[in-house]
């Protein structure tokens, strides 16, 4: 701040606000604006750079019919490499589907308990534990699938291999549950207390209030929670790579090994030469994943915005 006494300021300077402080202020405004816009630049950058690397494949070898309908992913075949991603898409979808079957009821149940029943210290403790669940790195989850779930599944179900849809699905369910619980609980909390009080004044019991008033009012947020969970499942890499068995397969039961889109990129990118068809095909898988998760996140955002407008 300038430290001039009023008497010493010539008239012209009083009129001219453009002293050093003014310029610093403007400079900071520009800097933080650049920071703010950077998020948009990064999203565009991600799309541009993965498209740039994958583009050569999309315009030449890529065959949409083969890509979406053939389960033969054989990029390393010497004479006739094929790039059918169906088995990978089905692999990702089956693992994510099972994960949601596990995670949705439990996350919603946990959100209801934490949001509507638990109070005081219990509530805080439960929230912290859910947060810690979210903190476990995906490679550790993968290791758990490999070293704990694998022998457990072999023993319990008497199957030869424990690295399969069931293993990856349960692991992924546990990974997706915290984010779903947190968002679902937030949307329960966003329901005005007046709704609950009005229902209770009419003689409704606690669970009637929850099922007939709170859940319908929080519907959009709950849908968004599930969508974000699905997005998480689609994008998870290391845990699925380690726990799913990583073999190309159209699964017929939860005890079949599968291979996910993400895991394919992670396992194969290191072995490819920059600019080869195989390398570009992996980037094409990346473009596909980017677009799917972008759509899921966009939908979730629109659904959430739906509540705010009301």
């Amino acid at each position: 701040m300038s430290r001039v006494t009023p008497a010493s300021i010539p008239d012209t300077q009083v009129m001219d606000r453009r002293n050093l402080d003014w310029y610093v202020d403007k400079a900071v405004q520009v800097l933080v604006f650049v920071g703010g816009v950077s998020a948009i630049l990064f999203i565009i950058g991600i799309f541009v750079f993965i498209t740039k690397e994958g583009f050569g494949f999309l315009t030449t070898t890529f065959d949409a019919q083969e890509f979406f309908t053939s389960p033969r992913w054989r990029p390393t075949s010497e004479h006739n490499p094929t790039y059918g991603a169906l088995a990978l898409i089905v692999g990702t979808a089956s693992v994510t589907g099972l994960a949601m079957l596990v995670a949705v009821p439990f996350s919603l149940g946990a959100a209801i308990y934490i949001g509507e029943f638990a109070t005081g210290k219990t509530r805080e403790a439960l929230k912290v534990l859910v947060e810690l669940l979210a903190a476990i790195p995906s490679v550790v989850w993968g290791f758990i699938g490999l070293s704990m779930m694998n022998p457990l599944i072999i023993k319990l179900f008497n199957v030869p291999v424990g690295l399969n849809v069931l293993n990856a699905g349960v692991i992924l369910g546990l990974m997706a549950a915290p984010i779903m619980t947190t968002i679902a609980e937030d949307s329960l909390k966003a329901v005005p207390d007046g709704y609950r009080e009005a229902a209770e004044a009419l003689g409704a019991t606690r669970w009637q209030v929850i099922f007939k008033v709170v859940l319908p009012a929080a519907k959009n947020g709950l849908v968004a929670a599930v969508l974000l969970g699905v997005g998480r499942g689609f994008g998870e890499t290391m845990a699925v790579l380690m726990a799913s068995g990583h073999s190309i397969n159209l699964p017929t039961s939860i005890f079949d090994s599968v291979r996910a889109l993400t895991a394919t990129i992670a396992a194969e990118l290191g072995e490819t030469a920059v600019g080869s068809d195989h390398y570009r095909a992996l980037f094409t898988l990346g473009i596909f994943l980017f677009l799917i998760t972008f759509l899921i996140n966009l939908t979730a955002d629109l659904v959430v915005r739906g509540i705010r407008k009301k």
Partner: protein
Amino acid sequence: MFEASDLNIHNQRAEKLWRLLFLMMTLLLILPVLIILGVLIHKGGPMISIDFLFTEPKDGMTAGGIFPALVGTVWLVAVALLASVPVGVAAALYLSEYAPDNWLTRAINLAIINLAGVPSIVHALFGVGAFVLFFRFGTSILAASLTLAVMTLPVVIVATRESLQAVPQAFREACWNMGATRWQTIRKVVLPNSVSGILTGIILEVSRTAGETAPIMFTGAAFFLPFLPQSVFDQTMAMSLHLFVISTQVPGVPEALPFGVALVLITMVLVMNAVSIAFRMVLRSKKKW
């Protein structure tokens, strides 16, 4: 005087049942964490020693310690923070203090949500295409850390924005009335009142960054390097990738070794998280307004 009617009793029972059901669901969600921690400590605990933490892997990574991986993770996290914290804090300042409610702000918010939602392996592809190849950093700590920085940027932005918005508007107005510029207000009033909240977010980001594997696999982390990195243009080992490598790629690893690595990794991450959570709770209880 008042006797519970049949309906009352029925309702009370129903409520108790529902409550029990939801409690069971919550506990079933949390129980696996405790079991996992228990098994990790049981099987990995005996591995942990000063030697394990401070020596290099030996015999094709089937014996020895994890020192290069530990140091590598510290390098990766530190460089990632240097890149992402300034940008993230600037973005949060813009969103909280400057941004008008228009389409651009909505686009920025949407971009942040998407940045957090893009799969980690897609971030890895971006890192390869942008930092390794286009900017010619090669597979190096710099490329890997920048990839991690872009990926964890939303964590910093969201945490910082939240703690900036927690500063009452009246504080700012009082400062503006004294003739201070926007920046003076931010520097002297808003930031001092939110700095601990921002720190909480940064600690959380550290824990996220330390555990990531996919984004660093092809951008700078190496399977095995017997020496420590000397600059940001070197490759390095990392804890997360090391766990992946010794549990899937190397034959003949004794069973306890990966458990030991997993235990060290998860301890780092959980301790950091717990510190962040504790910090947040202390802050909340100390809040004066």
